[in-house]
Every structure is written in structure tokens, then in C-alpha cells.
């Protein structure tokens, strides 16, 4: 570990444009974990397809 320099910080102005990815990633997580058809418009399909994942990732599921 001593061979690694202390990491330098990334200036916030360079970081800011990438924050636009956060809502997209949160939407993906929402569709996987919590959506019941209201957003995805696929009815129960997405919910049922990823049903076991929801239960085992520990999210409340019907």
C-alpha cells in the first residue's frame, strides 16, 4: 500500500456533469426493487420477473 500516493481530489466542476447519471441509476434501482407497474407500464411483468431478487435483496414485496 505504501507504493500508492495519496489520491488527489477531483474538482467539483468536473464532477458535476456526471451527476446527471444519478437519477438514471436510481430509476434502474427503483424499477428492479420497487416498481409495481406504475412507472414501467408493463403491469406486473417486471415485478414478477424480478420477484425473487426483490425478496432476497430484502426489499418489501407484496
Amino acid at each position, binding site marked *: *500500500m505504501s*507504493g*500508492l*500516493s*495519496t*489520491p*488527489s*481530489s*477531483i474538482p*467539483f466542476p*468536473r*464532477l458535476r456533469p*456526471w*451527476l446527471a*447519471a*444519478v437519477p438514471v*441509476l*436510481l430509476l*434502474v*434501482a427503483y*424499477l*428492479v*426493487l*420497487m416498481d*409495481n407497474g406504475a412507472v414501467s407500464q408493463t*403491469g*406486473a*411483468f417486471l415485478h*414478477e*420477473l*424480478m*420477484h*425473487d*431478487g*426483490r*425478496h*432476497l*435483496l*430484502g*426489499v*418489501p*414485496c*407484496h
Partner: protein
Amino acid sequence: MVRTLLVRGLLVGLLAGLVTGGFAFAFGEPRVDDAIALEEAAAQAAAPEHAEEAEHGHSEEAVVGRPAQKAGLFLATGLYGLAVGGIFALVFAGLRGRVGRVGRAGRGGPVGPTSDGRLALVMAGTAFAAIILVPFVKYPANPPAVGDPATINSRTLLYVAMILVGLAATVIAVATARRITGDPWARRVAAVVAFLVPVVAAWWLLPTVDEVPEGFPATLLWEFRLASIGTQLVFWTALGVLFGWASDRAARRTIAPAPAAAAPS
């Protein structure tokens, strides 16, 4: 730089998610099957002629059959890993170089991790405690057949509220630790106490949810919950280790670009 980190987070997250899917398939799916068998037996006993129309949709006529749901498990954990890995990378990009030096003025040495690899491990461990363990203790995972479909919205909101409490408690803990510049042990204890006070208060104050049906086997519930928290533990361990390993590897390459100049570490 940010782009590199984001791509790394997405790929490593996807990989960690698929590894997690393997664990959940091996240790969680048998419990899910047991619970669904109980659910169907209960529906059969309650209304033999209408058992097929069980509202849960776990019966044979469900939108998605059991084999597809088991494949869907990997889709779910893979997409979950992708999304979480991306967010993890962006938080990492923001924290990198901003933690680890702060306390250097004090005699206690730096606060927090000092290398990319350690930062990734500390972040993953903290995230597991704050957004997985904190909600799990109050609202533990439930197998199929446990939980009233009518309360899904309120249960989901309470679960998200516990995640937010865990995140807020982390911010409070870090802010508290930064104010203490002396003994590192005093700082660690203060951070843990500052984390636990809001978390325990929320555990105490938020409404309890107990929708386990009468007569549901306690061993099956325990084994399912163990498999569920194990699934999350596998995910965050894999994410922290893989992201940290990739980051340290990348850092070593930039320090010693020529193979001949590489230090024998």
C-alpha cells in the same frame, strides 16, 4: 477520470451483482420455493375451488413462471449491481482525496482511508451498515407468503425512510468524527455513538411491521432472512473488494508506467 471511475463502477457492480445472484440462487431460492409451497397449500386449504385464482400470482398461471423467476433473479441482482455500482463510483469520485487528509493537522493522523483501495472497502462497509443493516434490523426481509399486499406501499415507504435515516446517521457520524482531532479511539467511539443515536431513535419511533401469518414455520423465516442478509453481504463485499482492487491496480499503473521501473511490491 470521472468517466473511468463510472465505467469501473458499472462493470464491477454488474459483476458483483451476478456473483450475488449465484449466492442467492444457491442459498435463497430453496427457501423461496419452500415458502411458495406453503403459500399455495394455504390457498388450497382456504378455498379449494378457487385456489388457482390466488391473488398473489404465485400459482401456476402467474404472469411469470417459477423457472423464469429464477432466471429473473440474476437479471434483478445484475441490474441492481449495475445501478448501485454506478452510484458507488460517483460517490467515490466525490470523496476521493477529500477524506483521509482532513485530520492530519491533529496528532491523531488522518481521518479515514488513505488509499483508493481502502476508501472503496470503507465505503462498501459503511454502505452495508447504513443502507442494508439499519433497515434490515427494523424491517427484515420476508419470504413470499409473509406480508399483506394491501400494506405494500406503507411498508415500502417505511423501508425507504430507514435507508434515509441510515444515510443521515452516516453524515452525522462523519461530521462528528471530524470535530475530534485528538485520540483516534475517542474519534472512533464518537463516530459510532453519533451513528447509533439517530438509528436507534428511528428503530424505536417508527411503527413495527409484523405480518407473519399464524403458524408460519420459524425456522423457514430465520433461514430465509439469513439468506437475504447473506445475499446483501456478498454483494457489498464483492463490490468493495473488486472496486478497491481495480482502483489500486490502476493507481499502480500510473505510478510505474514502465514495467522495468515497477517496484517489487
